[in-house]
């Protein structure tokens, strides 16, 4: 730490020396990854030209205009950069130039992300607090989510008809949290399907999703006490291609005629193709996504739709696992916080105290 202070101190001295000119100065942008320098000048001129020395010392024009400042984001940390400001003086037919140098520095904290860190910590601690509460036997209430009450009915109907269930875990890869939320819902469904002896079809778009899906379904069959009923080949990969995947699923819907379709996860334009084809086969359809732009299509074409966050609440709702319910309670704490902040923000903006909003905006 001492060394760090010393280094920072040294840099400060150096740059105070170098930027002694009060007409043109260059500073490191504070609290960042050392990838930006801020340049300012105070000269009476309509247009100024700003140049930067490249690695060979040749001057490159980087700005021309009437502004009084410029932020250069094309710099690397710990390298010295030299800038030249040219101020044309048409009355004497000449120009004046100023030179300044600076070195961008890497720091250890993004100060402008403070509000972001605080809000993230607040929500996380709330979730951990409520999960802990649940572990200690506290019981949390969860309101009805209509779309999920029909899951049993859908599986029941498939059983009655002797038709399979189709589960599409979205078109996102495993790096999409919606896909993982979808897999947790799938684990409940697979268990139910195993209990009812109904076949489950899971086409996957990505290999990693395929691997995880197989693990999830296998475990669900094990839990239901029917490990022998698990058929690995019914959870399969189609193609990495968005519309190729959809063409394949459409074919499955037409030929296997599943009695219940589940489209849960991340969906893009293909949502309506899937939902409309599914509708034409007469299946009961349950869908859910956090992709706001695709929700309208699921709403109009499916029987039940999980809207936005309901997708993430679904596994808590279905399993009634106290820890999951606790975490949900934590999200709700976040919502109260959000509503309060918005109201406070609107009030402070109306009162003219812009620092409040600015504090939150700092995070971008």
């Amino acid at each position: 730490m001492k060394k760090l202070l010393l280094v920072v101190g040294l840099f400060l001295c150096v740059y105070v020396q170098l930027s002694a000119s009060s007409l043109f100065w260059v500073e490191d942008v504070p609290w960042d990854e050392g990838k930006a320098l801020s340049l300012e000048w105070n000269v009476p001129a309509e247009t100024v030209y700003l140049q930067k020395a490249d690695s060979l010392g040749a001057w490159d024009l980087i700005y021309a205009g009437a502004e009084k400042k410029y932020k250069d984001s094309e710099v690397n940390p710990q390298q010295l950069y030299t800038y030249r400001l040219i101020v044309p003086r048409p009355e004497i037919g000449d120009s004046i130039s100023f030179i300044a140098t600076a070195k961008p520095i890497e720091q250890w904290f993004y100060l402008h992300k403070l509000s972001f860190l605080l809000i993230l910590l607040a929500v996380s601690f709330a979730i951990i607090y409520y999960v802990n509460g649940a572990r200690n036997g506290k019981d949390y209430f969860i309101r009805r989510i209509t779309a999920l009450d029909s899951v049993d009915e859908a599986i029941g109907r498939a059983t009655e008809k002797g038709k399979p269930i189709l589960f599409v875990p979205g078109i996102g890869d495993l790096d999409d949290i919606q896909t993982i939320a979808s897999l947790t819902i799938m684990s409940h469904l697979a268990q139910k399907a195993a209990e009812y002896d109904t076949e489950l079809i899971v086409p996957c778009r990505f290999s990693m999703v395929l691997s995880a899906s197989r693990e999830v379904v296998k475990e669900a069959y094990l839990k239901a006490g029917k490990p022998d009923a698990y058929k690995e080949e019914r959870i399969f990969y189609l193609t990495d291609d968005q519309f190729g995947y959809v063409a394949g699923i459409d074919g499955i819907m037409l030929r296997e005629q599943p009695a219940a379709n589940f489209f849960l996860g991340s969906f893009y334009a293909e949502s309506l193709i899937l939902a409309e084809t599914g509708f034409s086969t007469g299946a009961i359809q349950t869908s859910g996504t956090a992709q706001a732009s695709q929700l309208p299509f699921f709403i109009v074409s499916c029987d039940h739709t999980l809207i936005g966050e309901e997708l993430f609440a679904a596994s808590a709702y279905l399993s009634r696992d106290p820890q999951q319910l606790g975490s949900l309670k934590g999200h709700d704490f976040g919502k109260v916080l959000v509503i309060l902040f918005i109201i406070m923000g609107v009030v402070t903006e109306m009162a003219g105290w812009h620092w409040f909003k600015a504090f939150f905006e700092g995070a971008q």
Partner: protein
Amino acid sequence: MKRNLPLIFAFISGILVVISEFIPHRPFSQMVSTLQDWFMIIAGFAIILGQISLFQANLAKIKEKKSGWYFYLAGLLSFMLMLVIGLLWGTQEYRGLIGHGEAIQGWLGSKPFDYMFDNAYMPLSATMFSLLAFFIASAAYRAFIIRSFESNLLMITAVIVILGRTSFGGMLTAWLPESFKFWHLPNLSDFIMEYPNSAAQRAIMISAALGIIGSSLRIILGIERSYLGSDK
């Protein structure tokens, strides 16, 4: 061990990523992009798993002479064809194992991989995508029925915006006097898009973000672990 050790790995990698968001200093500042590059590489290996699954599934169907097995044969053959020509002669930008195949290029007009891309893959993909035009019409026909108050709201705004987006929507209300300009259909539909629509989109985004933060935290802390399967 087969399950707990991976959970510890998940915990460590998750926490590191979150911390690195707030630290501008190296190596933290480059952590996320490095890990994302790694993800691509791992996915590059993993894609083979899926392709083996596809290959085996099609092969099984052909062997068992399931109904329509020749379609699966066609699928298998197109897979092999695309793979082989892609590896042998490469793509537009990349050299293949046996070069650029100038002779074939002269005959086909482009590399075989690109020829197949332009004349088979592209039309298939674009046509599949364009089916949406038909489905959006049939969905509107079937679902936009006057029923409850909520479904009426859905239908009415849809109608206003559909009208407002075309030329005749403007013609329809062009006679409105200046003081009623707000009700001019293009203006009205812009207003709906800008205010009530943004409000709802924001609400969905904010609450879904909370859901994602919660789910992520559960994953990092190991509360959500079904993706790993069972111990046995």
